């Protein structure tokens, strides 16, 4: 009889299954509250000390003294009310906002600020953004163990903090301070620095000062934050934000198309160009196909290789590639031709060489340089999506047509830093975030910088320093324009285009697509002030 019982149980299960797939069960839950559903990438939960992709949470929960605004043209005072410098940027006095409370009701004071900056700089914490504090006095001593704290940051009174830098840095607030979110000393102050990463604070109850309070984190599923009624910039319009965690882009697109999420994340990639049309056909979505990613894409030359030292060889490679055609075909019209490093037009010289497609000229330059067309060039790339793979194939074909033979090699993302460090490659297809400010270029094009790959031009170094000696954009522009011209003429890189990162937003959320449409370039690795408290749900 046992067998019959099994069979009965089995058929009962079958009935249950058929019930399960019945469309009658598809009862959408009525939502009474205003919920913004935002896509969020995996691997971003470790908090601002250890991850840069988690910065979207710093925009709603934790906050800094001042964040860069979405328009990229300045900073918005948040936990600081105002700041001033008596000596052209060598010392900064921050007046903190009064009456701000942490989400658990404790008052926010200067102690939290001093604690936070010390935490980021602490070698035992090993935060990945610590190097942005290298301008602060005492940083080197603290890092090397000669000092037990960051001497350049000190409390004057409960609502005033002083920062002392290693010399005048007129743009320090706009370019460096913006990386740091303030952490609650009353919660984290007792945690051993080396154990900070393991603190349940980051996942269980991230107490901040922002417009939304930490409510819940369900691993690999979502983070929920709810409205902070006491927010100092006014009560947010939305009741809550649910950050749904995704491991890949296709699932985000599906969820957008099926009205399951409202706002896309831009970390890790936007809509692949092959999917833009499909997304544009979804009536509930606003698609922004031309969001500038602030990422110049280029052929990287390893200047340590003697055969790449001749400027004519490098120029020839740019002339050899029909960039307009690649954009129009492989990249379906997305992307903007670039001829130098900086995406911001104010930093570009008006007289850049456009390197128009000219294979004859390319051949001639190569001939003059005595190019050996039997050479095989080790060519690395790390974007594994189809469009970029096709792009590399197109580049390979264009270069082969003038007698330059590259052998593409796809790198795993985890290998990139190793290759950067060892310089074990000859050429590559790279992109590099430059969205925030042209001064970021110094990290990748000055003498001795890792990503310069031994390129060195003293004048460029000098100009980068000059560019940071002024705070007015009009006064800084000539320096960057000169750099842009030098890097363009010397073909420091094989300039290709500025990448776009197409994004889509559900029309039921008011504020998201509007803000992203106003961004001149996307800003990576940083919290951005996006007025989230004013976003609303229809």
């Amino acid at each position, binding site marked *: 009889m046992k*067998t019959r019982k099994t069979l009965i149980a*089995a058929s009962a*299960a*079958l009935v249950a*299954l058929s019930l*399960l*797939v019945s*469309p009658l*069960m*598809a*009862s959408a*839950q009525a939502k009474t509250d205003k919920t913004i*559903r935002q896509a969020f990438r*995996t691997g971003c*939960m*470790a908090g601002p000390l250890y991850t*840069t*992709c988690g910065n979207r949470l710093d925009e709603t929960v934790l906050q800094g003294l001042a964040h860069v605004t979405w328009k990229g043209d300045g900073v918005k005072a948040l936990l600081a009310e105002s700041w001033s410098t008596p000596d052209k940027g060598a010392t900064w006095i921050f007046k903190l906002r009064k009456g701000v409370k942490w989400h658990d009701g404790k008052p926010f004071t200067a102690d939290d600020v001093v604690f936070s900056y010390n935490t980021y700089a602490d070698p035992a914490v*090993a935060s*990945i953004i*610590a*190097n942005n504090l*290298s301008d602060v006095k005492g940083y080197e001593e603290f*890092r090397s163990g000669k000092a037990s704290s960051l001497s350049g940051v000190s409390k004057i009174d409960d609502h005033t903090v002083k920062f002392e830098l290693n010399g005048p840095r007129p743009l320090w607030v706009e370019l460096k301070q913006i990386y740091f979110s303030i952490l609650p000393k009353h919660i984290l102050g007792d945690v051993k620095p*080396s154990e900070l*990463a*393991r*603190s349940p604070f*980051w*996942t269980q109850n991230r107490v901040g000062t922002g417009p939304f309070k930490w409510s*819940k984190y*369900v*691993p*690999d*599923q*979502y983070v929920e934050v709810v409205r902070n009624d006491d927010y100092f910039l006014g009560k947010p319009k939305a009741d809550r934000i649910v950050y*749904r965690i*995704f*491991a*890949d882009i296709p*699932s985000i697109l*599906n*969820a957008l*198309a*099926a009205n*399951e999420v409202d706002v896309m994340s831009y970390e890790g990639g936007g809509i692949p160009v092959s999917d833009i049309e499909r997304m544009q056909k979804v009536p509930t979505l606003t698609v922004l196909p031309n969001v500038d990613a602030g990422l110049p894409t280029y052929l990287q030359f390893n200047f340590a290789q003697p055969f790449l030292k001749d400027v004519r060889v490098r120029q020839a490679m740019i002339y050899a590639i029909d960039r307009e055609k690649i954009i129009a075909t492989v990249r379906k019209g997305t992307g903007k031709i670039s001829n130098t490093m900086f995406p911001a037009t104010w930093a570009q010289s008006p007289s850049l060489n456009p390197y128009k497609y000219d294979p004859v000229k390319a051949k001639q330059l190569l001939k003059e340089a005595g190019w050996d067309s039997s050479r095989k060039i080790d060519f690395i790339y790390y974007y594994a999506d189809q469009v970029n793979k096709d792009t590399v194939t197109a580049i390979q074909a264009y270069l082969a047509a003038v007698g330059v033979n590259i052998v593409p090699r796809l*790198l*795993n*993302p*985890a*290998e*990139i*830093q*190793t290759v950067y460090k060892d310089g074990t490659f000859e050429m590559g297809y790279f992109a*590099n975030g430059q969205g925030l400010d042209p001064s970021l270029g110094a*990290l*990748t094009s000055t003498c001795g910088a*890792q*990503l310069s790959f031994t390129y060195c031009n003293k004048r460029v170094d000098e100009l980068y320093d000059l560019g940071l000696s002024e705070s007015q954009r009009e006064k800084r522009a000539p320096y960057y324009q000169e750099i842009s011209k030098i890097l363009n003429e010397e073909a420091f890189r094989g300039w290709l285009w500025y990448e776009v990162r197409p994004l889509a937003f559900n029309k039921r959320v008011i504020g998201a697509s509007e803000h992203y449409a106003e961004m001149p370039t996307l800003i990576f*690795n940083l919290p951005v002030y996006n007025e989230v408290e004013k976003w609303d749900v229809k």
Partner: protein
Amino acid sequence: MTTYILRRLLVSIPILLGITVIVFFVASKMPGDAVLAMISTETPQAEDLIKLRRGQLGLDLPLYVQYGRWLWQLLQGNLGYSFQTGESVIDILLARIPATLQLMGTALLIAIVLGVAMGVVSALKQYSRTDYTFTFLGFAGISIPDFFLGMVLVYLLAIQWPLFPTSGISTAGEPYSLVDNLRHLALPALALGLVRTATFMRYTRTSVLEVMNNDYVRTARAKGLSEWLVVVRHILRNALIPVVTVIGLTLPVLFGGSVIIEMIFQWPGIGLMFIGAVTARDSPVIMGYVLFSAVMVQASNLLTDMAYSFLDPRIRYD
């Protein structure tokens, strides 16, 4: 029987250890490491920082020391802490195993129920139109990879005809409800289950056909038993023995298959966790997954052997 189980358990210890040794050293040969994977590819990083973080995670030690530390922790019942989030690996696993078991269990149920039923019908009505249809579907099912079926299901039943959600285990930010959970479960479980259904169906059909022609079946019919009893008591019970083996052997395959299905459906189980851990070179989590799956496979093999002796009284383990 007890001695047999004990012996099997004892033998499995060196096997498990061997697996962890191999995986640990092979995984460490993957290019890059946790620190390099964590920092942004778009900004260069200061050397001292990478060094600091490596030291903090113990990545600067020789490999055998790293393995020794891991093993020592394991003996104390601790699987270490994730390099990525700092959470304890045991907590990470425990939080995700139920989701994977739910998905695998449902998929297996679908596969067994549908597969055995279709196989029996197919065999009893050999060379009928139903048999040919089922055979055709069976071959189609064996040939289609589960991830492809998953994507087709999402396209058809979640986007074109939105009956089910595209991904996830339940609606994010809503309180848990069984109905909601089951709606999310339907597509991934079907994708994972339907492909296995085909295998079970083919095995059941062959096995039933073989048993059907035995003398005792003819005797049972001759003594006037109803057809139902003949099928259930005499044919099925004997025909299912090889099928049980196949089910047991499917468990590890199902386990592997659920990794890719969890990825496609963003199902928050240990498969999705494993992919994230590999990308991030998060070796404590990778090792946790490997150990758990190795234990699962060992256990399912043992259970299969035990089920065997239960179904076939001739088989005895001493």
